[in-house]
């Protein structure tokens, strides 16, 4: 619609020109003589009134027509009769092959239709999933599978299904971006690099119901790790029967979780219904979860909520005021991820200069960003790479090892900037490229940073707005100086953040390389003593501040409204989020 009304200004010009060429027969004359007694001024007035009136009428007609045709689409947001809830999904999952899924939406859907060896319960504790019990000790883990866990085609879930899925994930041909999460398993890295055959992977099915895993080295959090989607099982016979289309559509998936995908209309709808083959199906109280709308537009979703068409809607700073006036009950949630400015440390870039990075660090005030620009409760000013909710030795990591203290200091910033200019031999500095997402929130933040750099340091930045996929591609190829990036946790251990800037990590897209930091990451990976590991994370935290590897902006939170009749929705930082498997509808 936008293109057709706009793409051809030539067409507009032609139409006008045509009228001009026949001006010898003035078209407006009849009307002019008709209301000549009114005078030119009032004529204009009457015409505008008529125009506005016609416009209003047209709008009313259009809204009436849209009621006629759009009203029948979805029923009530929460329907106790059929046990159905209707929701909006922000984007469609690209595909649902668990070995290749990387994004949060895929993780959210997979968490409803699949089940791993273990899962998180509503209090975020690890509870048995397909595995009935397990022993993790030293560099070996044994999982004993329950005998009543079945695929949606009725066949039992076996240890072979896990071995097949894990081998698939580390197979070089799969090119899974999340293969690294299986690296704690013996030989996984070598298999993934093509140095060993997939059969060398240290996971074996001793019998149908016993899965034995040999680890590279003893790690204390392997049971938390296997709740991650890449560790979900896949049935080999089914996978090979789909001929490369596994996970592409509703019929191309075999389910072992609480729900199955009943209907998947690409770009429009994704409906899940309860899986009666699921071993614990009595736990599930909803019959259908219907993602009847796929839109990332906050305003559109909120309007759907207002009309009672969806049960949950997220809010942003702009819609918050409206929600307050509606006197809705608002909920807040911290999704556990950390957002920061990541520098490009490749030697060819100006930002590889530490003094320049320090100068930028000392003009930034995350509190100002969060309280004045983002303005959404739940976001907290970023102080460290490690978010506040991570557990330390006894309590929270950040209470045991506080983040380095930071305060805006313009004098120091200019000091650093002068030194940077001298070292680089450049004055003034050429514009820096500031890579950012292309969404309202990212636009607002990047323009704020642009002005902060310009007014406090005199550094000019060019904002490069890119969609998520393109931004990742540019980050990988190093086509930026600074980038607005974020990292969400994969498992509930500080290491999920701690190894991010290790020189070998593929997600270290600024290519920061520091042997001291690498050393501490190795300590954190291999040690089994909590005190030693936490001290290593503290050292990493200090290096990241002292060397200005990244500049933390905020820990992300969100505010949302929920239909009061829908209860039991679980929001969590690590694992499936939001989780509707325990949700139920209350009468009222």
């Amino acid at each position: 619609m936008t293109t057709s009304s706009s793409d051809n200004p030539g067409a507009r010009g032609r139409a006008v020109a045509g009228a001009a060429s026949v001006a010898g027969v003035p078209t407006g004359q009849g009307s002019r003589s008709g209301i000549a007694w009114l005078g030119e001024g009032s004529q204009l007035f009457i015409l505008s009134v008529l125009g506005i009136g016609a416009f209003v009428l047209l709008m009313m007609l259009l809204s009436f027509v849209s009621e006629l045709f759009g009203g029948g689409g979805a029923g009530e947001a929460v329907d106790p009769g059929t046990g159905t809830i209707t929701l909006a999904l922000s984007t469609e999952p690209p595909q649902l092959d668990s070995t290749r899924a990387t994004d949060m939406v895929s993780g959210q859907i997979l968490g409803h239709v699949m089940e791993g060896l273990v899962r998180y319960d509503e209090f975020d504790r690890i509870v048995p999933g397909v595995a009935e019990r397990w022993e993790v000790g030293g560099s070996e883990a044994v999982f004993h599978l329950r005998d009543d866990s079945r695929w949606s085609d009725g066949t039992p879930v076996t240890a072979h299904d896990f071995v097949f899925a894990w081998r698939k994930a580390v197979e070089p041909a799969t090119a899974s971006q999340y293969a690294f999460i299986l690296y704690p398993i013996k030989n996984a890295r070598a298999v993934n690099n093509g140095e060993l055959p997939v059969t060398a992977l240290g996971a074996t099915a001793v019998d149908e119901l016993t899965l034995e895993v040999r680890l590279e080295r003893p790690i204390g959090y392997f049971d938390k790790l296997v709740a991650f989607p890449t560790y979900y099982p896949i049935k080999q016979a089914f996978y090979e029967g789909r001929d490369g289309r596994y996970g592409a559509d509703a019929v191309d998936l075999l389910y072992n979780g609480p729900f199955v995908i009943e209907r998947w209309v690409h770009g429009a709808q994704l409906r899940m219904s309860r899986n009666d083959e699921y071993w614990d199906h009595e736990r599930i109280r909803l019959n259908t979860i219907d993602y009847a709308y796929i839109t990332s537009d906050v305003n559109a979703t909120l309007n759907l909520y207002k009309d009672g068409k969806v049960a949950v809607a997220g809010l942003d700073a702009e819609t918050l005021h409206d929600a307050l006036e509606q006197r809705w009950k608002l909920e807040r949630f911290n999704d556990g991820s950390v957002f920061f400015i990541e520098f490009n440390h490749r030697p060819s870039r100006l930002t590889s200069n530490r003094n320049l990075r320090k100068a930028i660090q000392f003009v930034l005030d995350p509190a100002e960003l969060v309280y004045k620009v983002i303005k959404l409760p739940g976001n907290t000013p970023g102080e460290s790479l490690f978010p506040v909710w991570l557990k330390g030795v006894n309590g929270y990591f950040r209470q045991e090892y506080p983040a380095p203290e930071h305060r805006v200091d313009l004098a120091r910033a200019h000091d650093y900037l002068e030194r940077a200019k001298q070292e680089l031999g450049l004055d003034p500095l050429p514009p820096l490229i500031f890579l950012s997402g292309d969404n309202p929130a990212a636009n607002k933040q990047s323009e704020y940073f642009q002005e902060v750099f310009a007014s406090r340091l005199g550094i000019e930045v060019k904002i490069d707005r890119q969609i998520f996929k393109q931004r990742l591609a540019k980050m990988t190829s190093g086509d930026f100086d600074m980038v607005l990036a974020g990292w969400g946790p994969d498992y509930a251990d500080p290491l999920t953040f701690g190894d991010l800037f290790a020189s070998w990590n593929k997600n270290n897209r600024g290519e920061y390389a520091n042997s001291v930091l690498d050393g501490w990451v190795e300590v954190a990976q291999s040690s089994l003593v909590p005190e030693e590991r936490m001290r290593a994370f503290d050292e990493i935290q200090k290096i990241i501040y002292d060397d200005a590897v990244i500049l933390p902006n905020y820990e992300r939170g969100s505010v949302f409204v929920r239909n009061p009749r829908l209860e039991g929705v679980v929001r969590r930082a690590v694992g499936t989020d939001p989780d509707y498997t325990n949700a139920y509808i209350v009468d009222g």
Partner: protein
Amino acid sequence: MNAALSFRPIVAERDVEVISRPSLSYWRDAWIRLKANRRALVSLYIVIALGLFTVVGPWLPFVPNHSAQDLDQISSPPGADRTATIVEPYVPWSGVTVNAPGGQAPLEAPASVSLAGEATTQAVRIFWDPVRGAHGYRIYRNIAHPAPDDALGMPLADVLVPSRVSFEDRLDIKPQEYFYSVVPLDRNGREAPVYATLDVSAIRVITAEEAVKRGLAGSTADLAIGDQVELKLHVLGTDYLGRDMLARLMHGARVSLFIGIVAPFLFILVGILYGSAAGFVGGRVDQVLMRFADFVVALPFLLFMILFRILFKIEGGDSGIAPMLIAMVILSWPAAARLVRGQILQIREEGYISASRLLGAKTPYLVLRHMIPNTMGVILVTITFAVPSAIFTEAFLSFIGMGVAPPTPSWGSMCNEGIKTMLTYPHELIFPALFISITVLAFNLLGDGLRDALDARMRSQE
């Protein structure tokens, strides 16, 4: 009576040959006719005012830099109160800690909630009486009283340490009334069905250093704590980053008017040359040239615009104005070319052209003396109609993010930003939208008036 006497020889009247009124040139006549058309005249004044607004506007004393962010006055509508009180710089608050009283459910509401210090836009600090058996507290803030339907508003934070009974709010505090509610939480982090509310009126404050930095006072010595200063004036309010709307509108007009005037001028120039060549030469050449023009008409503008962006290696962060201009010039000339060709074809067959030719006029003379002046009216009219169309195209492309790069504003991109806060801060959308509408309307009405004034055939009908 002598018949001869009844006849008197007439006196030769010399006045017959005198032209009683000064002769009117074509342009003078057009001007008089334009002046008689009130609509067109008002439009002309608006266009002139717009030019002044763009060129002179940014130099006016009350117009700040268009990209400067006034974070104390974010999204403030025009005419908002600007009084601020000078306070000490912000220092972190250690909060209030007590010995958490043990005990068990049911949880009761805190006996009282109180304010620590003064409630300012810098921070609002509240503390409350500990609740027996509470494992934490959740703090809400609302813009209206929670009673009667227990609408507590937005959840600001959870305090998950039972001994901590205070909270400092710094989240986007506006100088207005707020209602803070404290809800005790049980062992599992669930809310108790009770709460206590505190009514707070925050005042707008600024530190002395900030005031000096913003140019609100000469030096910090002139200011004492508690003094009142007026924050910077923003005539049309500010946008979502506290930038002055008026300055941005003036700056944005530059882009809009630049595209709106340069693009039509260029493509009509191309159109005149192309069209007059086709029309004057005629025959097979005319056929070939005009079929090529038809081909250009079929090319989609948006697609070309994107191709040019790639061709020029326009990355994000660079302005997309140049490819926009080139795409417009390359794709929009056929309309003008056809029009001019039609006129030239018509004029070529006129009697005076044949007469002129018979009298030995050469081609350049014919074109310059007869043809171009006679098509001038049509050309001018086309330009005035092409201008609003070009302004509109620019606004649209900036609206979808293919135009200017931040921080440069344009009316279209300002609309795009304003539409997100349409319901809460309507002024951010209304002003740029109004400017686009008025400008496009003014150029259209002016074009209408010019057409009436310049077209010779209109005269006989009035």
